């Protein structure tokens, strides 16, 4: 059963477009994360949030931005998509700092 939802599942978009990847969780978790992962490769943390109105950049430099206005919602926005943004974006949440991560199904983004 999925308690963390990501939409869209797949997205193909042209260069220069603005896009928002949606992530919502119903578990009431304070901690939420965005990871970028190329197929079969490592996970790179690009953004995280420890609660409402709290956002931090992760280890991987990213041209995306995030917001956390509500506990359950953590959208990621790309103001101007480029082919280098083609990747899978995984959203995750956890109850506490050291708690297990619950991942969404991911959004596979292709920028042409």
């Amino acid at each position, binding site marked *: 059963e999925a308690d963390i939802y990501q939409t869209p599942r797949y997205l193909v978009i042209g260069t220069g477009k603005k896009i928002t990847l949606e992530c919502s969780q119903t578990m009431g978790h304070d901690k939420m994360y965005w990871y970028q992962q190329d197929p079969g490769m490592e996970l790179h943390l690009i953004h995280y949030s420890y609660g409402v109105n709290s956002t931090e950049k992760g280890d991987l430099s990213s041209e995306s931005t995030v917001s956390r206005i509500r506990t359950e919602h953590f959208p990621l926005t790309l103001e101007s998509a480029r082919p280098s943004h083609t990747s899978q974006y995984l959203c995750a949440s956890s109850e506490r*700092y050291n708690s297990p*991560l619950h991942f969404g199904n991911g959004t596979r983004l292709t920028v042409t």
Partner: protein
Amino acid sequence: GQQVMQIPQYQHVQEGEDFTTYCNSSTTLSNIQWYKQRPGGHPVFLIQLVKSGEVKKQKRLTFQFGEAKKNSSLHITATQTTDVGTYFCAGTIQAGTALIFGKGTTLSVSS
């Protein structure tokens, strides 16, 4: 930079053979977690180790956390085709910080 190293990157085994992946950190970890990602899927949490020298078992899977809390291993006994996927370790370097993932070990199993 990468602070959690994982080896090997790839491993192919015949069904029934054992498999081990190793995770190493240059600094002490407060805890370590293991995840499995099936091809085309998302990472799924397997287990968390917190105590120095801790060993946990899940059926054919055995997880260990080193005495110095700088390394960990996942051992699968008698692999099956259902074990195929990428296994990630992830550690917390400092309390209150986000998990750092290793690069993963991709396991393939031939029958």
